[in-house]
């Protein structure tokens, strides 16, 4: 979400720190360092803080409550970054009273301790007006009442199709690609042109190319992992950590430009670990040999040596 949030259609991609006030604090659950995240977060004209609670994507599934103690840890985190909102004692008392489960209060306390000023390593950093990137996403101007079509009608995306990158007409007002936690990395040299990624993608992100491959428009990819799941070739489509990428350039064009350089680049992005977020897609659990999270113990990332497809 550090790359931006699109609440609904016509809202545009909005910076994660849009509502952060002067001297306020942005609390992020991440396994990255502040410097790494600030490569994606827009600049603010004043100082504020960024606090990082060590952990992995949890609420990103939106409709899915993984019950991985992220809720509890965020309450503890808030107590650490601004005790005036709530004290850690009150958080603990609330969790004990509500759930009668000690490990929930303990998770909140551990999160609290990790974000305190005295904590080592320090996890709260002051962000100055020099930190962050220039935010380039523009906010759409919503039409006035008399400019709208009657009957709650909006024109559909104009139909059109061309072969090649960005060849399909897509909705310019709602892209949703910034909130993904992982993206598909493709080895075109391994591709058998079976079409399954293109057919199965729920967001129609794949663009057929004149040479029979399928390019990816990452701006519209939500990182669901369906393409990687259906791809019959091992190592051809692999889901990788989204925050390794600072742009959404066309992988097919990259590959056409210099296929050797592309393969090296994409293998580097793929790394050795195969990352999967089982509960986000609701399907990935079958392809993951992740560590099952014990109650009260925080295991930030599920990593497997190999993905069985």
């Amino acid at each position, binding site marked *: 979400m550090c790359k931006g949030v699109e609440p609904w259609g*016509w809202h545009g991609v909005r910076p994660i720190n849009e509502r952060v006030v002067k001297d306020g604090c942005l609390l992020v659950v991440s396994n990255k360092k502040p410097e790494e995240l600030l490569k994606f977060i827009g600049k603010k004209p004043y100082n504020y803080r960024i606090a990082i609670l060590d952990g992995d994507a949890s609420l990103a599934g939106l409709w899915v409550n993984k019950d991985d103690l992220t809720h509890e840890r965020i309450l503890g985190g808030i107590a650490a970054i601004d005790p005036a909102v709530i004290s850690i004692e009150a958080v603990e008392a609330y969790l004990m009273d509500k759930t009668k489960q000690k490990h929930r209060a303990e998770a909140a306390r551990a999160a609290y301790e990790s974000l305190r000023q005295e904590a080592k390593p320090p996890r709260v950093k002051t962000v100055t007006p020099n930190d962050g990137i220039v935010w380039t996403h523009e906010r759409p101007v919503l039409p006035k009442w008399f400019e709208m079509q009657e009957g*709650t009608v909006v024109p559909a995306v104009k139909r059109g199709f061309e072969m090649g990158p960005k060849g399909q007409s897509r909705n310019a007002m709602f892209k949703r690609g910034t909130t993904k936690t992982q993206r598909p990395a493709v080895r075109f040299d391994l591709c058998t042109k079976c079409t399954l990624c293109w057919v199965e993608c729920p967001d129609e992100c794949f663009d057929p190319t004149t040479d029979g491959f399928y390019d990816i428009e990452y701006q519209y990819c939500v990182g669901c992992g369906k393409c990687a799941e259906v791809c019959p070739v091992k190592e051809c489509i692999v889901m990788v950590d989204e925050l390794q990428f600072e742009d959404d350039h066309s992988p097919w064009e990259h590959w056409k430009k210099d296929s050797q350089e592309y393969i090296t680049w994409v293998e580097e992005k793929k790394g050795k670990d195969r990352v999967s977020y089982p509960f986000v897609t609701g399907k990935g659990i079958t392809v993951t040999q992740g560590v099952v999270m014990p109650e009260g113990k925080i295991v930030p990332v599920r990593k497997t040596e190999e993905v069985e497809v």
Partner: protein
Amino acid sequence: MSVAVAQTKSDQSGVYEREDLLNGCQAVAHGVRLADVDVIAAYPIRPYTEVMDALSKLIADGQFDAEYIIADSEHSQFEIVKHASSVNARAFGGSSGTGWMYGMEALVVTATDRLPPLFVVGNRALDDPGAFGVEHNDAMAVRDMGWLLCWVTTPQEALEHVLIGYRIAEDKKVRMPMGLAMDGAFLTHSQHMVKIPSPEAAKRFLPQYDLAERRLHPDNPISVAPQANEDWVIEIRRLNWEAAKRARGVIKEAYKEFNNVFGERYSAPYYFEEFMTEDADVVLIGLGTVAAPARTAVRRMREKGQKVGYVNLRWFRPFPTVELRDCLSRFKAVGVVDRDFAHGSPDDCGILMHEVRSCLYPAKNRPAIVNFMGGLGGRDLSIADAQRMYETTQQAATKDSMDGFITWIGLRE
């Protein structure tokens, strides 16, 4: 239910094909046939049920061709009508009482999506178990949601208002759903001689339904009713407000055109009809079949030299604010007859009373005004009742007291 063929006689004018003895439901069915409706969705609840009976008979007899879908409930029924309307099918539905209320979710969205199907409401009490008689609260439930809403008093008017209703609802400047209300039993099931227009004349009056740029069709790719959160809703309301206001002008035009085709059937200002009001001191105003005993009472009281008249309010939405204000401020006293209730509302009046009183507030000459709660749950409103209401209103013209401000009519007390 059988049509009295023996009484059928041909009409020479050419705009009518024949005259028949029909009740309100059967008359509506003929209106639907003559409007060449494409999709009918039906689910039974009396008194509306006979409309679906009559329609299915017309179809079975080969007199009419339409998609006739029996739904599993009013909710599905109204959804079918709404969706058919959005793909440019002229669609018809109807219900009564709690059935109407059960489909309310679809009725609300039909209005906000500005689709123009026509629904008949055979007015029925909101079901204290087994209450089948007329009360207007059912149809009134859509009064603030962007619906066109009118009451008719005879089967002839019922038939004609199916055609008039579609014409107004489907007008490009309007495109709002049309509620055609008729009193349960007193109109739905009472027979009158009805002149049935010829299909050619009906076609001349009622143009083809064309949703144009809003037609949901693969050749016209649009999304209808996408997520409308706080970014859109005020603008949608504002846009729909405009249509509701424009409807007043379109209604007038529709009646003028109806008169052009069928002869002088309706007179200005069309939204309501005045009966013997020219020199009247005191009038009653009401909706639907209240007109019958009221008009008779007027005639009888006129014979005794009393200056009374009746105002039959036809269009409730849009409310004819200016015209009705001008009309009623001519009189010394107005009695408003409510066949509905609004418990706990200001002064505990009925709904029509609130509307009429609110309409009169800016008038230079405000008449005295009294309210009658009568005919609830289908109880008969007799000529004697009407005379009593006139007498009470006459007294109100001469005194300032709020005593007798609300009178219950026909109540056992």
